[in-house]
């Protein structure tokens, strides 16, 4: 039985995807 995700887990997932990529891009583009 698959377990449904709570709202805070979805929010955590979204931030977990967004933040590292944003930080990396900000640094990488800034260095180019």
């Amino acid at each position: 039985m698959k377990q449904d995700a709570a709202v805070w887990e979805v929010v955590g997932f979204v931030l977990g995807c967004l933040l590292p990529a944003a930080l990396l891009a900000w640094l990488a583009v800034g260095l180019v």
Partner: protein
Amino acid sequence: MDKPGYRKVHTTPIPLGGGVGIWFSVATTLLAATLLAGLPVVRQWLPESLAQHLPGVVESRWKLWGILAGGTVLMLLGLEDDRRGLKWQWRLAIEVAVATVIVLWQQMQLSLFIDNGWVTGLLSVLWIVGLINAFNMIDNMDGLSGGVAAIGSAMLAGMLLMPQATGESQPQWFVAAMLLVLVGALLGFLVHNRAPAKIFMGDAGAYFVGYWVAVGSLAATYTGYQSATPHAVFAPLCVLAIPLYDMLSVIWIRISEGRSPFEGDKRHFSHRLVEQGWSKTQAVWIIYLATFCCGINAWILARTDWVGSLWVLANLLGIVGLLALLDLGTHRSPKR
């Protein structure tokens, strides 16, 4: 470096390397995530609702790396185009080749309920190549292409993460992650690209971003949740209506003026808005908001019956029609 010219809106040379940064960020984040997903310690950290999907991530990582390889080829193609300027025939041939490999090898096809693999395969290749060029064409003002791609991808990802009414559905974490990582990379890039831009994404970025959005929209499932909403397959069309409108309208203008559709100019939707008297910043925000308004239709489409889908279609046509009416003035008084 992108030097100022008759079809450019900037007045000083601006570096074009932003696309490499976007690609680097997406590739690094996803490679790290797929490698970390195999570690037992990560499973312990994550809540069960997410940890239960980790074996699936590990299983699918070769697929993701394959998609990333396709994006890398396109990014390199764009980089070469930025440096030397390639002939459009070569560019298009390589774009079609990469799209064909991804569609055939990764089995990524549009779900249009057409019982013919060749037709859906061909339409899928057309979708990928179309979006690569749409995001390249809309990359003509500070923050425009990156912002539109970020809004579109975020809305598509939001739709894939929304809990569905049937109660037996699961969010599509994998595809949502692909899109959200791109959104993150674009937000990081936009810090440097917002007006007045210090750097552009160039063809390298536009090709990669267009490809990634196209593949993300193909990889998602729109009708698995509820068979009562087959019209949800048109959700990507809602989300990406504005870049597609820009591409199709500029091609129409060029052809109607007897020019090649591949010849660059300042007749894009954003340029046309500026010709009407809007400032560049206002033009960019009008296009952002139009993308958002069209994208909202995708969210409704996934939750409504077929009668509701007709209202969604009417709403979408209304928004695009309104933009086309706003455009008419500039069509009548062309200024290059």
